[in-house]
């Protein structure tokens, strides 16, 4: 049985699970059945995908008599899809593990259980599809399934609106992808990927297809300015689904981009990298700035996904440029950076969403201003969340640092590019990347510090309790992988090199042979990094310092009230809040992205009412692009509404006019 057939049977099993979940949703064992089954299937497919990635590099096309009658449904697993299958099924397995613990608390299981395995199946199908029709069908299936999950708690808060915006944006994205595939398919209708590869379109057509793919896949991934649905929809779903959407589904979108742009269309012009780099850098910076301003923990994480997508796209932009200018090893470096960051982000973003979910189920709060001090009652969750924060802030020795380091190394190769635009763009992108990385650290110092440290701001935070074993396991597995990928990055780089060479037909030098498990992207004299040694050095010097101090100096410790410059206050309300932590950064960078209005209401001396400070943050992109668009659609709808109240005679004349117009158009068609 070929690997493709095995993957398809896995997907079929997931779909069967979806049906079973729908039928048995009200039964007490339904949660265990669905999540346990999904965990087993994802784990099996993860192993299978790893075997595919490390072993055979080229799959064979499997044609099933489904879908369009003259092409059938084509499936193929090559190294690129195998890599993404690893990412998706790892995230899927972790989310299922979390789901096992969370299922008991789900108040409307009938709205979650059928769609969760269906969503996983949809994502898996996108990755094995090998013709445009199957790809788009699976893509839509994935979108609809995730939309259903976003709407699971549709009566809460703004969730219904989030679902609506998501549905509109998802349809828009699919439509763009449809047009892109239509351009790539030869006039004879070669919808199979093989046919597209065999007959590449003219540069102008390919360029248009590339732009459409950037918009279509980018809107799913969350590039600015197409990101607006993402921070609404991702947090609205149950937490393990948020983790899947943010950590995993965005990676399917990334896969779609790589598949179309690198594999099917191939860079056909140096300018292809320019929009990708600009969009990537803008997305990274704006994403982290938006994230910094949030005080809803899950929404902060969702916005931060936008930043990471930006970093991944910066890598793609560089890879496109290097590939076009015939520098395969540099292209491989940039591609490795992007794909490694894709993998890393799926790890730590899932982990952080599980942590946010654990906090949500322990306290009922997503708002950081109502949390605080959770490290005391939820020490394990806090520890795992801290690892995730350190990894996502690109701190050594964790994995986030490695992929950003590789991206910087790729940027340092860009002076060799023979294009003036790129020469000027590359350092600017590098500076913006560095800025967003530093802001990310501030963002996660805030996320962890306000949520888990300090004093509890409400009773629900004070009486929180540690989360269940499944959720802890779902957090600690990615946390361990974050450390592993940061300490021995060479192994991970080597593992994904078949996928890289699929995309850019170049390879980085093998890292396994380098002494002491270092990584050296080009040559050791130029740059090298050894996560293992850095980790060991930090561990050794910290314990050395601690043991010397404890051996030779005082060991005594006394607990006392906080000093606070001699003015300790009893109320936890006097602590720094999420908003006040980000205030200096908002003052400095705010004008860039937000419309901020501060309103201070200071009572006259003698008045007894409290002073009030109000802050409204507007999203400039929403105001500039989406609000006018929504308004004009609404106006048009109101105008068109008149058509519903015509007399029969008027209807007849409208129909007649339409018929005449169509006939005239048909007659004048060349």
């Amino acid at each position, binding site marked *: 049985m070929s690997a493709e057939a095995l993957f398809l049977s896995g997907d079929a099993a997931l779909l069967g699970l979806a049906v079973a979940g729908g039928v048995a949703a009200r039964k007490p064992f339904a949660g265990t059945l669905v999540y346990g089954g999904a965990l087993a299937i994802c784990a099996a497919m993860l192993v299978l995908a790893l075997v595919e990635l490390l072993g055979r590099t080229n799959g064979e096309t499997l044609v099933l008599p489904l879908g369009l009658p003259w092409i059938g449904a084509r499936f193929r697993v090559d190294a690129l899809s195998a890599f993404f299958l690893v990412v998706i099924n790892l995230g899927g397995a972790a989310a299922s593990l979390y789901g096992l613990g969370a299922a008991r608390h789900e108040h409307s299981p009938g709205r979650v259980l059928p769609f969760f395995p269906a969503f996983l199946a949809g994502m898996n199908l996108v990755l094995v599809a090998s013709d445009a029709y199957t790809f788009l069908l699976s893509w839509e299936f994935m979108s609809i399934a995730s939309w259903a999950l976003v709407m699971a708690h549709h009566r809460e808060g703004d969730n219904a609106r989030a679902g609506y915006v998501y549905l509109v944006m998802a349809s828009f994205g699919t439509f763009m992808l449809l047009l892109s595939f239509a351009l790539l398919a030869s006039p004879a209708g070669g919808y199979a990927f093989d046919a597209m590869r065999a007959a590449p379109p003219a540069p102008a057509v390919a360029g248009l297809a590339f732009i459409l793919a950037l918009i279509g896949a980018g809107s799913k991934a969350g590039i600015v300015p197409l990101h607006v649905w993402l921070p609404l929809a991702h947090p609205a779903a149950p937490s393990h689904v948020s983790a899947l959407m943010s950590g995993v589904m965005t990676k399917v979108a990334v896969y779609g981009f790589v598949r179309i742009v690198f594999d099917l269309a191939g860079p056909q012009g140096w300018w292809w990298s320019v929009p990708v780099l600009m969009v990537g850098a803008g997305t990274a910076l704006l994403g982290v700035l938006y994230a910094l301003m949030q005080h809803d923990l899950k929404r902060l994480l969702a916005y931060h996904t936008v930043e990471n997508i930006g970093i991944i796209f910066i890598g793609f932009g560089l890879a496109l440029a290097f590939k076009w200018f015939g520098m395969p090893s540099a292209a491989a470096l940039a591609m490795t950076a992007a794909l490694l960051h894709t993998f890393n982000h799926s790890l730590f973003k899932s982990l952080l969403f599980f942590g946010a979910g654990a906090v949500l189920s322990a306290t009922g709060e997503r708002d950081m201003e109502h949390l605080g001090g959770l490290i005391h009652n939820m020490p394990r969750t806090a520890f795992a969340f801290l690892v995730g924060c350190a990894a996502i802030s690109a701190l050594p020795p964790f994995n986030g640092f490695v992929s950003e380091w590789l991206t910087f190394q790729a940027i340092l190769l860009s002076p060799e590019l023979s294009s003036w635009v790129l020469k000027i763009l590359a350092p600017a992108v590098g500076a913006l990347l560095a800025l967003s990385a530093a802001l990310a650290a501030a963002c996660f110092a805030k996320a962890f510090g306000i949520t888990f440290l300090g004093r509890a701001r409400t009773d629900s935070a004070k009486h929180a309790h540690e989360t269940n074993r499944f959720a802890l396991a779902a957090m600690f597995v990615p946390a361990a992988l974050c450390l592993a990928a940061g300490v021995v990055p060479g192994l991970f780089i080597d593992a994904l090199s078949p996928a890289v060479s699929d995309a850019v037909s170049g390879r980085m030098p093998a890292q396994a042979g380098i002494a002491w498990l270092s990584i050296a992207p080009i040559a050791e004299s130029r740059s090298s990094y050894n996560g293992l040694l850095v980790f060991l050095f930090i561990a050794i010097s910290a314990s050395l310092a601690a043991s010397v101090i404890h051996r030779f100096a005082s060991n005594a410790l006394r607990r006392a*009230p906080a*000093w606070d410059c001699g003015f300790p206050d009893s109320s936890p309300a006097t602590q720094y809040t999420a908003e006040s932590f980000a205030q200096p950064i908002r003052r400095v960078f705010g004008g860039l992205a937000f419309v901020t209005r501060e309103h201070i209401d200071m009572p006259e001396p003698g008045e007894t009412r409290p002073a009030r400070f109000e802050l409204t943050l507007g999203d400039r992109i929403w105001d500039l692009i989406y609000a006018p668009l929504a308004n004009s659609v609404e106006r048009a709808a109101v105008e068109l509404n008149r058509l519903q109240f015509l007399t029969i005679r008027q209807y007849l004349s409208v129909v007649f006019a339409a018929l005449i117009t169509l006939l005239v158009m048909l007659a004048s068609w060349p």
Partner: protein
Amino acid sequence: MIVDLAFQLLQMTLVIAVAPLLTGLVRATKARLMRRRGPPLIQPYRDLIRLARKEAVVADGASWLFRFVPYLVFAATWVAAALVPTFATGLLFSWSADLIAIIALLGAARFFLALAGLDVGTSFGGLGSSREALFGALAEPAMIVIVFTLALVAGSTQLSTVAAYMVSSNVGLRVSLGMALVALIVVALAENGRIPVDNPATHLELTMVHEAMILEYSGRHLAVIELAAMLKLVLYVSLIVCVFVPWGLAIADASVADRLLGALLYLVKLALAGVALGVFESSIAKMRVFRVPDFVGAALMLGFLGALLLFVSRTLK
């Protein structure tokens, strides 16, 4: 191998041994300029020992993180400092992390210190953390663009290679390097919390940043954090010295005598830098907090311009 290891260990102990001395020197210079006698040069050592001997008072609401952070901050700073060539390049472990990793290590130290500031849940701690986050968010990208400049000039991000290249004669005078130097000095002032960005001598003042963050620390924890701060100053001075005034630096396979001479010269350079810092700090006023972003932002722009010049001029040579 053994000799290399010995020199690596020597370097690690050297930076830690001279760190309090450098701080003492800066303080003494400032005191003399104010016509005070000031404390003796070795006062920082005494302070550290006194702090280490006292019992540590930990606030009631502090978590395990609060007690863990000082050692972590110290370790990250020490590892970073050990990777900067002080008197010789090509030390045993210098290839294990490049300049970008050194910056990231310092970023890790800042991240955890900011968390410690938030841990007890006091307003001062939060204030320090929040401002440190802002300064860090500006200083770190400035450092990265400076790294771009250095890496493009020397063809490597390995600090050892950069320093060795700077010692060699084929550097010449470059505009980019001048811009990078100014930017690096500004970043060093900001990162070490020196005047005009922050005043290391203040307490009980709303403008403080670093001191506010570590306000709740006492005893041995405070000693470790203070030592880490002193170490950071040495690190930045060593960084500037090894890149921009590298003369006397012993390159990879120099003789033992050369290396010892390098060490001597290094101490002289360190002393000069300490005096210069003292003079600079005495002759300038502290800035308002919201002026600091302009100051560090200027460094970012300078560093960026320098890097841009190099990116663009790559084809011209």
